[in-house]
């Protein structure tokens, strides 16, 4: 057997995907109240364009985009706007949101325009993507139309579809590829047209042979290369994935476009298909609700704005007392303080650990075991950078390339002394950015 493509560094956390991998996606019923944050993407938040008391329809814009790196947000069902106010947000703060009481009709706006992507110009397609609020659904939530508009001096020759889903526990993309491979394919063809590229890869970790087979069948006869990748975290990190598939290395401080590549998540591709062919905005996504603290882990098709508590209810409720709520995966997800937070476009998973499953222990001294070093996919010395950061020696952290940290968590995961390395690196990165701002 040929060796699977991969990247240097990384590690093998237990994947715990078996809980939900074989479970078909279920449609999550509408909650009593949808909380639609105006900030669901990287970039400027949207601006509310409805008023309390307004009747809205499914797919109607409720928050307008502000600036180029921004997308509108939409009502994810029909109903009445009951409030526009700060609500708990995944970031841990209360941020402005449009609150909608569903009317049960679930009625689409009437000006949805279906279209044949073949007949649309590239600009028309990008406009549709922006208007539909398409953002990267792998978690980064970067507006897709921006990613698809690289500056002229950065020619793109390769498109990579990210179906890796290397975060433990999560199976949302896996189920998506199994259940709606046609949508993914349709999205790929639209992306092909927008970028005018023919070198197209779809990378999937080898632990999803059924998805690989399904997508190979779907892409049979085309030039799309469906590649099985070594099961290793973080195989799905953008730069690592590009290296594994193309052998190209995004330069330090650079972006994928610097090596002629655009990466999109498979979920994003499916959303792109709906947005372009049906004119449907991004109002729902697939989310894996799992972990020891959930009675019946599931993959759910969730409307944007559904409170996490509602997702838990759909999964048989909490099993025991939760000790940690995580939006996203266990390696890079964000801990949440409350289940009142709504699911958004980037919510690939809700992971709940039961009391007792999380041990809190004091960090010890670095014993120089080197595990963080060999695990770091960015080739950094996490222990050294962290040591400098603790001494507030930020010039040194910069010299040791702290800014190249992708915050994958491999270092902290493997540190026997339980040193919060990623946290310290994030702190160093913040301080370096602050310093750079001041110098300008």
């Amino acid at each position, binding site marked *: 057997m040929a060796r699977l493509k991969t990247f240097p560094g990384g590690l093998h956390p237990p994947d715990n995907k078996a809980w939900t991998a074989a479970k078909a996606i279920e449609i999550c019923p509408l909650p009593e109240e949808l909380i639609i944050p105006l900030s669901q993407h990287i970039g400027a938040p949207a601006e509310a364009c409805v008023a309390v008391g307004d009747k809205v329809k499914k797919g109607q814009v409720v928050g307008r985009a502000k600036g180029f790196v921004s997308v509108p947000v939409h009502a994810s069902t029909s109903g009445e706007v009951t409030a526009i106010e700060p609500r708990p947000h995944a970031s841990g703060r209360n941020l402005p949101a449009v609150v909608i009481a569903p009317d049960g009709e679930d009625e689409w706006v009437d000006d949805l325009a279906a279209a044949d992507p073949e007949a649309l110009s590239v600009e028309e397609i990008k406009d549709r993507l922006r208007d539909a609020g398409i953002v990267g659904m792998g978690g980064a939530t970067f507006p897709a139309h921006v990613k698809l508009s690289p500056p002229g001096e950065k020619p793109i020759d390769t498109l990579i579809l990210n179906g890796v889903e290397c975060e433990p526990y999560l199976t949302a993309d896996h189920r998506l590829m199994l259940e709606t491979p046609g949508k993914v394919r349709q999205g790929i063809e639209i992306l092909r047209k927008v970028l005018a590229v023919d070198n197209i890869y779809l990378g999937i970790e080898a632990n999803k042979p059924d998805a690989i087979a399904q997508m190979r069948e779907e892409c049979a006869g085309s030039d799309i290369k469906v590649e099985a990748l070594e099961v290793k975290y973080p195989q799905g990190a953008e730069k690592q994935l590009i290296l594994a598939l193309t052998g190209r290395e995004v330069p330090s401080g650079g972006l994928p476009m610097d090596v002629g590549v655009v990466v999109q998540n498979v979920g994003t591709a499916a959303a792109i298909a709906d947005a372009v062919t049906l004119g449907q905005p991004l109002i729902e996504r697939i989310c894996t609700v799992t972990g020891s603290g959930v009675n019946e882990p599931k993959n759910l098709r969730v409307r944007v704005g559904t409170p996490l508590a509602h997702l838990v209810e759909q999964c048989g409720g909490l099993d025991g007392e939760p000790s*940690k709520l995580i939006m996203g995966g266990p390696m890079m997800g964000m801990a949440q303080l409350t289940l009142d937070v709504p699911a958004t476009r980037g919510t690939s998973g809700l992971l709940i650990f039961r009391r007792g499953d999380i041990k809190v222990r004091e960090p010890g001294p670095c014993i*120089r075991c080197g595990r963080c070093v060999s695990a770091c996919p960015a080739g950094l010395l996490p222990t050294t950078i962290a040591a400098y950061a603790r001494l507030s020696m930020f010039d040194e952290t910069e010299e040791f390339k702290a800014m190249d940290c992708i915050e994958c*968590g491999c270092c902290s995961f493997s540190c026997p002394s339980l040193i919060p390395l990623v946290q310290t690196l994030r702190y160093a990165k913040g301080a370096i950015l602050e310093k750079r701002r001041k110098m300008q």
Partner: protein
Amino acid sequence: MSDQLYLSSSPHIHSGETTDKVMRAVIYSLLPACGVAIYFFGLPALMLLLVCTVGAVAFEALCAKLFHSKLAIADGSAALTGILLALNLPPSAPWWLALLGAAIAIIVGKQVYGGLGYNPFNPALVARVVLLISFPVQMTSWSAPAPLGSGVDALTTATPLGEWKTAVMLTGKLPEGMASGFGSYFVGNMAGCIGEVSAIALLLGALYLFWKRIITWQIPVSFIGTVVVVGGLFWLSDATRYPDPLFHLLTGGLILGAFFMATDMVTSPVTGRGMLVYGFGCGLVTVLIRLFGGYPEGVSFAILLMNAATPLIDRYTRPRVFGTVAEVER
């Protein structure tokens, strides 16, 4: 609910491999060697192991009290240092020497630098070398193994390396019949420090460490490889004067040193490339001391010397950062 939720930053899972588990695994890996030590050298070996281990733990606790630092006995590192020290003592070493060694290892070797993780030198080796220099008589009087139940009294004798060195110094030639002992060397039936004699017990422990992924191949392979190759080259150049590679390998403290002392994480480089350089240095210095130095054995000195070079090695073997061209060292 929220007051009971942890809000710590990602990652939210951990390998489960913790410092105390690592230390414990290394202790387990030394049990076969401890067993063989007690088998061949009897109660004196048991006494040394006990005095060193209990002593090291006690001095660790004492330091924690004096320096008002957190009591860290539970991490097992003090006990491990004690065991390693005992294994590096000759069987006839008196109890007070062992106790003194434990004090030196923990206080001078480790705590003065700030405790675990901050010590530049392997604490057990610091103690051994200080003892060797301060008490040369007690530290170099060897007794032949007297296996349990054999009824033989321990006789004073020389280590194979010592025997060779004396012979070469006196006659310029290898001693007679030197090649005959390999079977005994391998199981550990020879004179030496109580823990270094049995290659087979040490290798068993080393296998366990590899299996547990506590140590990686770089240091032991480059260390031993260098000794064998460089020692072998001398042997090829003059077989009447220089011992053969197998002799280098099986006698003395090479295996104990290469697998258990040089691999001490705190005092060795953190990158794979750095480990190779470090292991090579350990090997080279060992051979040179053995063949040309004043002491018959050079493993301890070699490792301590390379401990000192570790920060430098780390500096010049930084991994290549993703997306950068191989760094030109400044």
